[in-house]
C-alpha cells in the first residue's frame, strides 16, 4: 500500500458509509422543529422573565419585585450551598455530601468550583452519561447539583463548557477509559454490583 493511499481510502470509505445511510436523516428538520415547538412553553417563561427584567419606562415596580424575589431565592440557595461546603473539613470547596432519604437513596451533592465557566454538568453511569446540569445561582463560581442515588459504585465526570473533567479531588478513585479519566464514588458503602 502506498504511503498516502490510506488517506484516500479512508476519506472515500467514510463518505460512502454516510451516503449509504444518510437517507435516514430525511425529515430530521421537521422532527427537531416539532420537538422544539413542544418545548416552547418553557422557553416562553424564560422570555417572559427576560422581558420583565429588561429596563423599560413603565412597570418599574413590577420589574423590581421580580428582581427582588430572584435575588432572595439566589441568596437562600447560596446560603444553603455555603453551609454544605463549609461543613467539609477535608477539602477546600468541594464536597459530596450524602444525606439519607426514606427510600434508601441518598441525596448526593456534587460541588465543583469553576470560576469562569458558563455551563457545568455531571455525567455518570447514574444518568446514563447524559448531562445533569449544575447550577450557580449566586454567581460565585461554585456549581452544585443534588442527585438522589441508591447505594452503589458510581463512575462520573464533570463537563465544564464542553470539556471533560474526570478527576474530582473528592472521588474515592479514578478509572481510565477512552483515554481519559472518570471519577469513582461509593455511596452508602455500595460496591455497584
Amino acid at each position: 500500500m502506498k504511503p498516502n493511499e490510506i488517506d484516500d481510502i479512508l476519506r472515500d470509505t467514510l463518505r460512502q458509509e454516510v451516503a449509504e445511510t444518510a437517507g435516514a436523516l430525511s425529515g430530521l428538520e421537521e422532527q427537531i422543529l416539532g420537538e422544539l415547538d413542544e418545548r416552547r412553553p418553557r422557553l416562553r417563561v424564560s422570555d417572559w422573565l427576560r422581558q420583565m427584567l429588561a429596563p423599560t419606562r413603565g412597570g418599574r415596580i413590577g420589574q423590581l419585585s421580580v428582581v427582588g424575589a430572584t435575588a432572595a431565592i439566589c441568596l437562600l440557595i447560596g446560603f444553603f450551598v455555603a453551609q454544605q461546603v463549609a461543613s467539609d473539613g477535608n477539602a477546600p470547596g468541594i464536597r459530596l455530601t450524602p444525606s439519607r432519604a426514606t427510600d434508601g437513596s441518598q441525596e448526593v451533592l456534587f460541588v465543583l468550583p469553576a470560576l469562569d465557566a458558563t455551563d457545568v454538568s455531571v455525567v455518570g453511569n447514574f444518568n446514563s452519561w447524559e448531562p445533569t446540569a449544575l447550577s450557580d445561582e449566586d454567581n460565585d463560581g461554585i456549581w452544585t447539583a443534588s442527585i438522589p442515588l441508591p447505594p452503589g459504585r458510581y463512575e462520573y465526570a464533570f463537563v465544564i463548557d464542553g470539556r471533560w473533567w474526570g478527576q474530582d479531588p473528592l472521588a474515592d478513585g479514578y478509572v481510565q477509559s477512552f483515554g481519559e479519566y472518570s471519577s469513582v464514588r461509593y455511596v452508602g458503602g455500595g460496591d455497584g454490583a
Partner: protein
Amino acid sequence: MYRVQDEVSLLRASLEGETEAWGEVISRYKDAVFGLCLGFLRNRADAEDITHDAFIRAYVNLRRYNLEKRFSTWLFTIAANLCRNRLRYRRNHPVAELPTQIRGGADPATIVARDDRHVEVREALTQLPYGYRAPLVLRFYNDLSYREIADILSIPEGTVKTRIHRGKAMLKQRIEEERDRP
C-alpha cells in the same frame, strides 16, 4: 429554503426564536454531524439518535455560543461529547456489532457490489480504539484542521497529530494483515 443565506444571520434569527432558521442550520450541517457520529459510534441507530440530540442541545444552548468562533467547531464539540457519553453507556449496554457494514445500512446487493477495500477499512476502523478513530474521522470525513480537532476532543494539538499518524499506521497494518490471511 429559508430566505436568509449567511450563517451568522441564520444563527441570530434562530436566537430570536425563528425556528425556520434553525431548520436551515440543520439542513446545512446534518450530514456533517451524522458522519461524525457514525464514524465515532460505528452504529447507525446510535448515530441517528445523537445527531438528533446534538441539534436539540445546540439550539437550547445557542445563547452560549460565541458568534466570533466557528459555529461548526462548537456544534461538532457538542456532538462529540454526546458520542463519548453514548460510548460509555454502550460499555455497559452493548449492542450486536456487524463489523463490515453499518447496522441497518445498504441493501445486500449494494454490499456485495461494494469495493473490498472499503469493507476492509470499515472493519479496521470499527476495531480501532476510540482515541484513534475519533481524530481520523474528524480529519478525513469532516476535513478539520489539527487545531479544530484538538479543540473538539479537548486534547493537545500534538496529540492529535500523533494519534492520526499512529491511527493510520494501525489501520494500514490491520488491512495488510487481513489481505495476507489465507
